[in-house]
């Protein structure tokens, strides 16, 4: 059920962006959701043929998740470019993003290579936790930049905030799984699929309801100490 909801929301975002001719503007998002939809189909195939508890399903889930996260870094890069568009630093952002993605890839490869003899569940949970945490840091820095530069585009603000919720919930749940493995079976295993639905639904809502020219003062969204 959760998969179907997420899958439909992903397709809705892609169809909406194509129908509004915004596919080139938001091409990293379209590419990410197309890949995510294929991965969802692959996961469904694995569950049907090998079972939910199988090693095939686990490997497919965790390694496609890592690849999707790298694609999500491309989406974050796009948001950085939108935020810093007026400053004309697009080339520097692209260079920094390529460096970050290459470094993440090399680091992940090195860690996997070093642990190839004991690729346990604990290891993949730790890897996912680290990759998601990089996402949290990048999104938080972007949110800081939005506040500092007084970026007022409501659509961009809501897209970034929804992404922040997605990354922080996933990073937190993986970290909790690392700390308290006993919690996994009951509570924590549901957080990543729920966030997998949250992101496409929230973005679908933003694209459908928030006009391109809608403006919002980001400082009003902050909770200030009195």
């Amino acid at each position, binding site marked *: 059920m959760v998969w179907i909801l997420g899958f439909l929301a992903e397709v809705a975002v892609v169809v909406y962006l194509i129908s509004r001719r915004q596919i080139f503007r938001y091409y990293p998002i379209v590419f990410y959701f197309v890949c995510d939809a294929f991965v969802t189909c692959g996961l469904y195939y694995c569950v049907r043929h090998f079972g939910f508890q199988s090693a095939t399903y686990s490997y497919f889930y965790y390694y496609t998740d890592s690849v999707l996260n790298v694609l999500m870094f491309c989406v974050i890069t796009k948001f950085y470019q939108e935020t810093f568009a007026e400053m004309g630093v697009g080339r520097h952002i692209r260079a920094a993003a390529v460096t970050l993605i290459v470094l993440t890839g090399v680091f992940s490869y090195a860690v996997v290579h070093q642990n190839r003899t004991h690729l346990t569940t604990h290891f993949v949970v730790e890897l996912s936790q680290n990759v998601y945490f990089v996402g949290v840091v990048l999104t938080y820095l972007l949110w800081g930049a939005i506040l500092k530069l007084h970026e007022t585009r409501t659509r961009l603000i809501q897209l970034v905030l929804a992404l922040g919720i997605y990354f922080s919930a996933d990073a*937190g749940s993986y970290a909790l799984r690392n*700390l308290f493995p006993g919690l996994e079976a009951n509570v924590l295993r549901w957080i990543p699929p729920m966030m997998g639905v949250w992101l496409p639904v929230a973005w679908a809502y933003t694209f459908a309801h928030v006009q391109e020219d809608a403006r919002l003062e980001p400082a009003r969204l902050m909770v200030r100490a009195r």
Partner: protein
Amino acid sequence: MIAALICVISVAAFLQFFVSYCRSILASSKNIALSDRVREVTGIANQEVGADDFNRLLQLLRLCPERGDDQSEIRAVGTYYSLLAVLHRVSRPVAPRFAVWLEQERQSCSYFAAVALDRRISYSRDLFTQQISDRL
């Protein structure tokens, strides 16, 4: 140690992102004035929308025909309101200043529900007018 650090930072970031996201939805309704019609229906003719009015407004909302495009935002704000209500109940005796802020946030949620109700009433009237004109 690293997992604990990541956990604490992620939870703090999550709360900040979640509150800001909900406030971005609430902000869209802050500058919209309520019509006399909705004030009359809800009984808030001369006073401000109260923090505790949210559930009553939500019940009135459910009586109106759905517009189809506001369900997800009402649900998100409903979740936010529930969270605020729990925090308000817990914090009132121990942190009164925080409770005051929570009260203001709950009031914003109620105002959002009133604006949503206003939109739905207008939508119902349009539907009704359309049906009448179709019959004629």
